[in-house]
């Protein structure tokens, strides 16, 4: 994946969100399916920003790419499940880890799972994909030479 693909993903995500917002201006308000534009658009925007930020020399490195795909699938999937599954949050609600099913998918899926995965992925790939001692020394040397 390249910076160009990440940017394309970001523009596409913004377009999906724009469509959802435009539908809200229709007489009678947005149709229920308009929420899909924001759900997938938000997931795509965050995933694309991760890929864009993690790219070095125009290419996204493997762990960051996996993190970006993971965020898109997890956020898009959790919001999608909440939109697709039937509502059952009344007295007969089935609770998962103390919350009704759809709510548990959203709150634990988006609010907790990435927190356990992403920081570790970032830390474990940092030396190889983000900034090694050699990278830092090379940049500092180039800066000194530029100043001189």
């Amino acid at each position, binding site marked *: 994946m390249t910076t160009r693909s990440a940017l394309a993903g970001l523009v596409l995500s913004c377009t999906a969100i724009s469509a959802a917002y435009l539908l809200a201006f229709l007489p009678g308000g947005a149709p229920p399916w308009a929420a899909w534009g*924001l759900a997938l658009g938000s997931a795509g925007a965050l995933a694309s920003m991760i890929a864009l930020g993690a790219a070095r020399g125009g290419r996204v490195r493997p762990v960051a790419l996996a993190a970006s795909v993971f*965020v898109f699938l997890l956020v898009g999937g959790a919001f999608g499940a909440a939109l697709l599954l039937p509502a059952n949050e009344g007295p007969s609600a089935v609770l998962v880890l103390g919350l009704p099913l759809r709510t548990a998918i959203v709150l634990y899926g988006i609010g907790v799972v*990435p927190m356990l995965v992403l920081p570790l992925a*970032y830390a474990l790939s940092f030396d190889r994909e983000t*900034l090694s001692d050699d990278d830092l020394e090379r940049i500092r040397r180039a800066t000194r030479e530029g100043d001189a």
Partner: protein
Amino acid sequence: MTGWHLLQAAPAVVRQPVIIGIAALYFVVVAAIGVWASRRTRSARDFFVAGKGIGIVTLAIAAMASTLSGFAFIGGPGLVYTAGTGAVFIVLSASITNTMGAWVLAKRMRLLGEARGLMTVPDAIGARFRSPAAQGLSAVAILVAVVGYMATNFLALGLVIDAMFGTGLTFGIWLAMLVTLSYTMTGGILAGVYTDLFEGLVKTAASVTVFWFVWRAGGGMEGISRAITAVDATFLGPWGKMPALSALSLFFVFGMGALGQPHVAHKFYMLRNPRQLKWYPLLMSGAMALTLLLYVGVGLVMRAKVAGGALPPLVRADDATPAFVLGFTPGAVAGLVFAGVIAAGMSTVNSFMNIGAAALTHDLPRAFGRRVGEELRWGRAWTLVLSLAAVLLAQLPGTLVAFLGIFGYGLFAATLVPSLAIGLNWQGATREGAVASIATGLTLTLGLETLAFFKAFALPTGVTVSGLALLLSLLVFFAVSWATRARAASQLDADVRMVMDA
């Protein structure tokens, strides 16, 4: 506004010796840090970027402390009590945004700061696009948001101090300003960062402790859910009491907007060793998760207590936290929470005082091709002027102050996300795109929020001013950069390109 209705109605409940003692101890520690830091602040570099000598643990906890204002302890739980799960969408993306911020901003801001000796967020935008106009416009956006945020936080702090010490609201507001000003003006961001560290620890301790009492009082998450779902089938639905579009809109604004918060991005300059960034997402996410337990837990347990008939409905939603800690926790925990609320307000205000002063001392003069001599002295003077302006604004009618505080986050997002977060990662972006997007974000946010305030216009359900302004600012940035793409390469200095490729 922050709901101290309950506290003001029953001051004797609040003014227990243990609660006042803990709050007073908090002020003593903050004052001691201020004195310590003021002795170490000798230059503008010390004042604005803490001498670039901060460690990663301090940085992460200070960033968390300045991110989570008093809203996380008062307004947020109140919103959860009212809107249910929908209110959680404001903080839901925090599980992603801290790591995303590390990938998108942290390394590049830190390396660019070192290569160019930068001190402010508008500095980075100016250097990226070689554009004094972009630097100046972003400084104006920051200034507008900062004064509103400061006024709102001074009012909230004044209400807390009045409720606890019986000072009267006006004196409470002035006292909050004087305490925060005293350490920010003398010790600059060095004092700010170390008081943020202390305040962050207080907030985290308060949140974790309260959550334990929430768990016990509600019978665990299942007990809370059963009590609520028995009487209300939508409160604990995936979007709570909000339409799906509104909840998702919050997720978009707060998810993407996290990349445009200058009081967080600015702190990346201060890190002593950029290799320590490796641990930033882990520390920041962990600290934030613990501190947000109170935000989510208190609103839910109070709703469960009301649903189960154990408590009458709250007169005001913002009373959720004071009512819970006074009714269900010992006095020492209540004292810790009230100290945490003061900490939340002060840690946010001191960061804004500093970046506001930097905009006036450093960024705006540079936008006009001038440099201020003795930036340290001017930085202190502008800190004083901004604080006085914010305190005077804080004494305006409450709804107007709330209005000033509302659009801060959205204004930062709409003006800074495209030019800063995308600009530092896309070599095809142009200065024309940056200037156009900042102007779009500034104009739309101020214009639409003002029209909405005067009820001259209302957006349809599910569309917020901050969401619309951020979206249009992004689209303008892409469109104008694409239209002027032939100029992109010539607007990028070699050292900036090297940092962007790193």
